[in-house]
């Protein structure tokens, strides 16, 4: 019995040792850079004159057209060189890490940052088996991310609980530093299988997206489009009413979707950008999906820092109806397609030009 236990202990010890050391070269994901890191490197190497970035999740990635934006800005007498730093599902902690990486590599010259914070985005904690997750989650970021998740009173995806995030992040952290987590993930320890192929970072990928913008041709049609268009007025009124209640402090439950501590994370991001010499404009997208998070954030921003942090709320469908309809300019109720992106980017340029004038 003792001999058997000793043999078992030797096998386990060698397993852990080999997995920690030899496993890393065998693990393909660790050789593949994550999308955020790849995008920063691409921007800096191919567009070194960038002085304005738009950063946010997929609705920025698919909605901010740097070419249309820069042309519109030039027509207003403002020369900018913009780059789309939108990344699908970009959470606030990832956004912080991305800007830290960006400013570390390019200490100067990014003067304007358009930020669209996504409080409903926690995707990096749901895909432990991906280059993006493994690259992002070192020990410090793993702890910070979990602390961020624990700030939520109500998590955005009800099917993913805190223990799921804990498990996924732990798996990704261990895999970041060793390959022991590979064993855990292989035995189905992490709940979400997620991506099993490295993120696309080849030059052929960027040829279609030279300034980071993801041009999508698909447009809403048929019954979906009609349903969307017919429901727009009701959405606009509902959102406006909700914002009124939130501004008046009459809806604690809705306000709790973006708690004060969650909002502090955003304020730290703004402070961080400003410390690098960048001016920050907060943009809310022309979205219907997850609008409750946007409304809660807007109300908190207005209450806290309306005079200090500029806000462009394109989610107001009463005012920005042209960004919502017709449905043919939209990929879905959350994202623009390439036609809609051009329209929104020009509208954004109009707002940004005025904002820059105010700054100076």
């Amino acid at each position: 019995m003792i001999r058997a236990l000793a043999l078992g202990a030797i096998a386990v010890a060698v397993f852990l040792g080999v997995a920690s050391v030899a496993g890393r070269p065998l693990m393909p994901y660790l050789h593949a850079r994550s999308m955020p890191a790849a995008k920063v490197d691409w921007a800096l190497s191919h567009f070194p004159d960038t002085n304005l970035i738009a950063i946010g999740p997929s609705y920025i990635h698919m909605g901010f057209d740097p070419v249309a934006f820069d042309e519109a800005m030039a027509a207003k007498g403002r020369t900018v060189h913009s780059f789309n730093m939108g990344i699908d599902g970009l959470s606030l902690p990832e956004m912080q890490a991305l800007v830290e990486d960006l400013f570390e590599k390019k200490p100067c010259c990014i003067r304007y940052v358009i930020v669209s914070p996504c409080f409903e985005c926690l995707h990096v904690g749901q895909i432990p088996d991906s280059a993006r997750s493994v690259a992002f989650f070192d020990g410090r970021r793993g702890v910070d991310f979990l602390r961020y998740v624990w700030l939520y009173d109500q998590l955005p995806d009800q099917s993913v609980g805190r223990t799921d995030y804990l498990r996924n992040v732990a798996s990704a952290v261990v895999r970041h530093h060793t390959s022991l987590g590979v064993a855990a993930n292989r035995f189905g320890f992490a709940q979400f299988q997620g991506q099993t192929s490295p993120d696309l970072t080849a030059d052929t990928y960027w040829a279609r997206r030279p300034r980071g913008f993801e041009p999508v041709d698909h447009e809403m049609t048929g019954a979906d489009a009609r349903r969307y268009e017919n429901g727009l007025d009701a959405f606009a009124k509902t959102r406006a009413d909700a914002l009124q209640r939130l501004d008046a402090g009459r809806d604690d439950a809705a306000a709790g979707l973006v708690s004060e501590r969650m909002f502090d994370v955003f304020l730290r991001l703004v402070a961080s950008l400003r410390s690098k010499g960048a001016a920050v404009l907060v943009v809310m997208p022309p979205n219907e999906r997850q609008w409750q998070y946007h409304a809660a954030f807007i109300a908190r921003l207005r209450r806290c820092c309306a005079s200090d942090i500029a806000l462009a709320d394109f989610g107001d469908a009463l005012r920005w109806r042209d960004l919502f309809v017709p449905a043919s300019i939209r990929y879905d109720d959350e994202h623009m397609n390439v036609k809609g992106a051009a329209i929104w980017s020009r509208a954004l340029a109009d707002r940004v030009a005025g904002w820059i004038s105010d700054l100076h």
Partner: protein
Amino acid sequence: MIFTDAKFFLFFPLTFAVYWWLGDNRSRKQWLLLCSILFYAAWDWRFLGVVLAVILNTYFVTRLVGEWAPERWRGRILAAGIAISLGALGFFKYYNFFADSLARVTPVSLGMREIVLPIGISFYTFHSISYMVDAYQRKIAPAREFVDVALYILFFPQLVAGPIVRATDLLPQMRESRSIASVHFKYQLTLFLIGYFKKAVISDNLSPAIDRFFAHPASFGAGDAATAIVFYSVQIYCDFSGYTDMAIAIAGMLGYQLKPNFAHPYLAPNLNEFWRRWHMSLTSWFRDYVYFPLSLTGVMRGRWPLVLLLTFLVTGLWHGASWTFVFWGGLHGLGLIVHRLWQRGRESRYSIAGNVLTFAFVCFAWVFFRAPDFAAAAAVLGRFAAPGLPTIVAWPPAALMLTAMIAVHAAAYRLDLSSALARTDDFVFAAGYGAAAALVLPFVNVAVKPFIYFQF
């Protein structure tokens, strides 16, 4: 729960620990039976009733034909028992197939039903039938302990995908006491890891490219068709033989010896030899319980080609309720007939040309095994008319991998693994095993896929 699943790595250590902790054979069998019931219930508890019905049928029929019944009744009792076990298989697996086929050629419409196929039914009904026949033929004394019969049918290592174990092999082992000292753990653990590697690394990693091709064959050319078919031949071998390796290893760790089910089939120089090496437990089952009895019946006596063809048509049908499986079986039957006629008077020996030809034929037949219908099979084979280099995988890394697999496969043919491991120092083995497991795991496909033969 399958052998590569996280749950199994909790289930088996517990099963193993309690099993060997129990002091007497009777308690151990009861414990194994309980674990086997839980193992099956983890798949689908609803069909425990079907398994119980088959077990009860088997137990009473074998007792009757083996001990209790008068001689003149034995044949009828056996026939009834086989009919009950086959009836369960026939209903759950073939009702819709026959109803649909009948409706296509006759005005008779039986109506389709929503029938869920109980996992492992093809295997445990064959266990049941072989035991009943062997008891009838007095090849084995019927087990008096109900636990023995239940455990023989439900023994979890071979319950859901074989190998098809004969009662003459397993029941005598159940009557013996065994000690943990008799278990060759080094061999069993190595066999398990080899099986795990075949299934979770080779088979599961080939699956995406194969699925991509077979889903839309029109999008690919001849190079991809050849690649996908060869890959499928590797996938099904590694999937099934990998499972069998793990099943044999798990049974071995519990002190039960199961016979090998594969003997390097793709190194066979002819089709006859292929079927002596592929799924050997099934081939021998059909030989003993279908081919030989049919050969001895009056109308079939002397008509071996017809008997052989019928046997393989039924073999194909056993694999799945679809005419493509029947056709696959028929192809092999015809191939065997041609081989035997050609082989007459010739000495049988290995040749590379024969090996390549046999492998090519087997690959061609696998198309019908893999394709969901004849139209899909035709679409796959039609791609050979569209020239094009392989695109579904990166070459030459894939070629290098395939060459390495062939080399290892051929080298392993002559290796006596059990003896080699017996000579290995225990501590060296422990360290080597830990290292090997750590090097295998990074390559395991994350998405756990069921074994291919579970669908049969």
